[in-house]
């Protein structure tokens, strides 16, 4: 959980181990439109202590479920304009299948379980809490 921009290249470097042959990463960016409305930015509100616990639990789960070397996840809080990176996930593994599967698992679980909420700010000046994930 980070309330300021994070050095992604340092997160990536920490996943580099000699046994790793594949690396999969996912980034969630603030998108310009949602449900037909023009978005100017998103305010991420998080219950930080529980978000950290859940995030660490998810990373432990992927280490048990998939043949990976290392995994990291980062989520921003606060207001982010369109184009900013809100979430970053990186997984290194000996082979690509585990890297892709674990990376996908982490983002899916974050979206299901980690107490973070998006308040969208629209170009119209209105704001709104995103009710739930549509995709």
């Amino acid at each position, binding site marked *: 959980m980070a309330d300021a921009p994070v050095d992604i290249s340092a997160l990536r470097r920490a996943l580099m181990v000699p046994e790793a042959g594949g690396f999969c990463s996912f980034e969630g960016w603030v998108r310009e439109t949602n449900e037909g409305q023009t978005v100017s930015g998103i305010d991420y509100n*998080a219950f930080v202590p529980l978000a950290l616990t859940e995030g660490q639990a998810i990373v432990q789960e992927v280490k048990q479920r998939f043949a990976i070397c290392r995994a990291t996840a980062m989520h921003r809080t606060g207001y982010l304009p369109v184009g900013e990176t809100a979430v970053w996930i990186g997984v290194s593994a000996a082979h690509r299948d585990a890297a892709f599967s674990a990376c996908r698992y982490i983002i899916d679980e*974050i979206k299901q379980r980690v*107490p973070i909420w998006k308040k969208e700010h629209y170009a119209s000046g209105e704001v709104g809490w995103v009710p739930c994930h549509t995709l």
Partner: protein
Amino acid sequence: MPNIELQYFAQLQDEVGRAHERRHTSAPTAAALYDELRAAYGFALAPACMRVAINAAFAPWEQPLGEGDHVVFIPPVTGG
């Protein structure tokens, strides 16, 4: 009556109008406390679509509340 530390997020925070509240309550469980708050503040969200965290860990709705417990009702999450 135990003293409960409440913290509100997302739409609940907007509905209450603040992020924190210290509340004396006779509600024996998290479920009963949510009903009490919903009546007070008119929360739109039904508990069926929510979870509850007690002392920063997910807990069953029927968990009894104790003095000083920190309670957070968790609307459907939308991070990522």
